[in-house]
């Protein structure tokens, strides 16, 4: 008697849990649009400088019933750990998740865990974006899992005060010419650095890893070939660039700063280095650093429409909707709204980054709002010009790992003067084997 009752209860529990599972699976597509009668909570996770706060409020106002709960993580590396942990756990991801270009490759490996935004009309607005940005967010099966927010075309930041003290031109057009204009090369960049170092005795750039990242990003194929094979060992073009950088660093051009730390921004104020590679979003980062160190426009930073080695893109983000979202339709709607050109213009103004949609770019160029912190530089015009000719490079699953944990430690050997180019390169290869090949 007891047993049979128990069995009944077990059976009931089984059916109930099955029903829950079933409804959980089907729950995806059938959510009702949000309204005042059907309130929907949407969670959003972003990182670093995203500039969305005002936009959330605007969206909530336009869409009664929608409440946005936003989380902003302090940097892309932490956002990566956060997203991966939650993906692994199978729950906890926000309805809208910002994904960085650097770890998009890993996300692509599990792209089936993200909603195909084509189901919510992504294909219709495809032409909003620069074509390569839209392609990056598309997985090999043609499912669109990420809508582009910003891109990171690279320009060159330089410090006017320091340039003047070294007898170099300070006007941003002259500086662009100085580096070689459209034909700027890394050789010129390092030669100017040597010249600067001889006159002032100071370092030219903050640390090698950022320069290296820029160099690799502008190659046709970076750490991976377009077919997804590792492309480092025996890659002579890459080794040549490495040697170029190593020679510069050996000549004292690196300030051996800690990346994304810079002594809490002090290195941007005290003249430790004179130039800095500047993907568009870096202006926001530098702004933050200057504020932390108490520096303002008077520190003399400016940005020139030039980049050694030609057009290059570093970073940029995407908005994705995970399959685990309970309101995929609402979430996709929000992601689309946030990446709409109109909103991108506002985002760009708030976060100092550069939009990935053509209309937004055009609007920013036309508005020509000067960036006060960078000597009133017309950053829209500069970065639109720097975005021309960018070719999207294939990013493999371990791209950010290779950048941060294979080459960054190897380049640190050079920065701290503890080894030669050969030693640093072979350390990089060994780290690659340890961490990526035999992982």
């Amino acid at each position, binding site marked *: 008697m007891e047993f049979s009752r128990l069995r009944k209860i077990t059976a009931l529990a089984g059916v109930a849990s099955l029903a829950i599972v079933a409804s959980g699976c089907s729950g995806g597509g059938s959510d009702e649009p949000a309204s005042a009668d059907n309130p929907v909570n949407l969670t959003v996770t972003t990182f670093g400088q995203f500039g969305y706060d005002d936009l959330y409020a605007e969206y909530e106002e336009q869409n009664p019933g929608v409440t946005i709960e936003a989380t902003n993580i302090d940097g892309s590396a932490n956002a990566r750990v956060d997203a991966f942990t939650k993906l692994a756990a199978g729950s906890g991801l926000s309805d809208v998740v910002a994904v960085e270009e650097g770890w998009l490759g890993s996300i692509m*490996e*599990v792209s089936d865990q993200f909603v195909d935004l084509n189901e919510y009309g992504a294909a219709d607005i495809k032409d909003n974006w620069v074509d390569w940005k839209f392609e990056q967010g598309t997985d090999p099966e043609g499912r669109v899992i990420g809508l582009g927010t910003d891109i990171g075309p690279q320009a060159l930041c330089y410090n006017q005060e320091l340039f003047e003290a070294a007898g170099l031109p300070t006007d941003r057009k002259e500086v662009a010419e100085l580096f070689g204009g459209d034909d700027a090369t890394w050789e010129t960049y390092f030669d100017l650095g040597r010249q600067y170092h001889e006159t002032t005795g100071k370092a030219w750039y903050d640390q090698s890893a950022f320069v290296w990242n820029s160099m690799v990003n502008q190659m046709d194929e970076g750490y991976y070939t377009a077919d997804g094979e590792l492309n480092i060992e025996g890659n002579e073009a890459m080794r040549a660039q490495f040697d170029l950088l190593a020679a510069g660093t050996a000549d004292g051009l690196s300030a051996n700063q*800690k*990346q994304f730390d810079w*002594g809490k921004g002090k290195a941007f104020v005290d003249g430790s280095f004179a130039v800095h590679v500047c993907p568009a979003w870096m202006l926001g980062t530098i702004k933050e650093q200057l504020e932390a160190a108490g520096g303002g426009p008077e520190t003399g930073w400016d940005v020139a429409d030039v980049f050694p080695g030609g057009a290059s893109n570093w970073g940029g983000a995407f908005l994705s909707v995970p399959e685990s979202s309970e309101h995929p339709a609402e979430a996709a709607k929000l992601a689309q709204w946030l990446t709409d050109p109109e909103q991108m213009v506002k985002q760009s103004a708030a976060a100092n980054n550069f939009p990935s949609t053509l209309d937004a770019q055009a609007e920013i160029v036309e508005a020509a709002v000067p960036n006060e912190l960078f000597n009133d530089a017309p950053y829209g015009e500069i970065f639109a010009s720097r975005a021309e000719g960018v070719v999207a490079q294939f990013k493999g699953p371990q791209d950010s790992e290779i950048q941060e*944990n294979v080459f960054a430690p190897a380049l640190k050997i050079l920065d701290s003067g503890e080894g030669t180019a050969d030693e640093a390169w072979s350390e990089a290869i060994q780290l690659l084997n*340890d961490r990526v090949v*035999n992982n």
Partner: protein
Amino acid sequence: MTTTLNRPAASSPAPAKPALTFRQRLNVFDMKASPYLYISPFFLLFALVGLFPLGYTFFVSLFDWHLLKGQGEFVGLRNFQEVLQDRFFWNSLFNTMSIFLLSTIPQLIVATAIAAVLDQNLRARTFWRMSVLLPYIVTPVAVALIFSNLFGEQYGLINNILESFGFDRILWTNETLPSHIAIATMVNWRWTGYNALILLAAMQSVPRDIYESAAIDGAGVFRRFFSITLPSIRPTMIFVVITATIGGLQIFTEPRLFDPRTYGGTAAQFQTTVLYLYEMAFQRQNFGKASTIAWLLFLIIVLFGLVNYLISQRIATTGDGRGTGRGAGGRRRKRSPAPAVVLPAVGPQPPAPAAEPAPDLAAEQAGTPADTTPRSGQ
């Protein structure tokens, strides 16, 4: 669940004595089964949050297991083989041991000295005693933030002072030994006062008349300290050593936050084993190997626990300081929040009995969750 598990064993002897009334039988049942029922919540909870994760971690360690893609193919003990040949694993063990030694030894010496001073007749003694505990209340995150400013390489306070006196800068994050000292300093700052209080409690229970007779016999302050105080607090000292060992082997927060952009330095200069485990799981996304590291760390801690147990048993039988370790209580310290990967050594610990604290504590601390099972066999 509990009742059904225990009931059959307890009620089986009942039919053998038919003369017993229902009430008597109930009493017998109460006598025999109740103690087990009372302690069962701990063991059930432990099985759920300690034993199962431990077993499952071992299961995961036998597979290629990707963080995002999940379970892969069965590889047997290959992960163990590879981790044992991994230079970063040995590097992490070296760092862990080095930081452990740099933190534990000075910490215990200073803590004993502070305790001895606090044991004197001071004005406002509660104030002084509470003050030494203050660093312990500050969260490790805040401690790490403040200390990484102090130990900054180019803009840190310490290096600024050194430079203004004409000394060379110390590369606090790029060189191995300085980085270990920096991290050990954070650990010491946080834990010295805590240990001092535990040792103070032990010192308080040393009978005062021994000191008096020693003083009458002409023993000076130092002689009294070394010949009376130290031997008397030996069991508590052992407890402190053991908890410091376990805490030291699991150190995570301080090295993690000392340089939050890397996993223990650009070239793993101060990457501890738990930090390596964390990196393996969440940066390198290799859950199989991360589980392997967790298991190896667990085995090492068990080994340390056993050594501690043997030593402390020797000391406890030769020493005469029994019953003086009351202050130690059963509190167990935890240096760092457990990383999200299942770590063997986290779990609730029952308070230790007041009498004969040393051997019991040793077993318990050697414990770490999984060891509670062998515990029944001693």
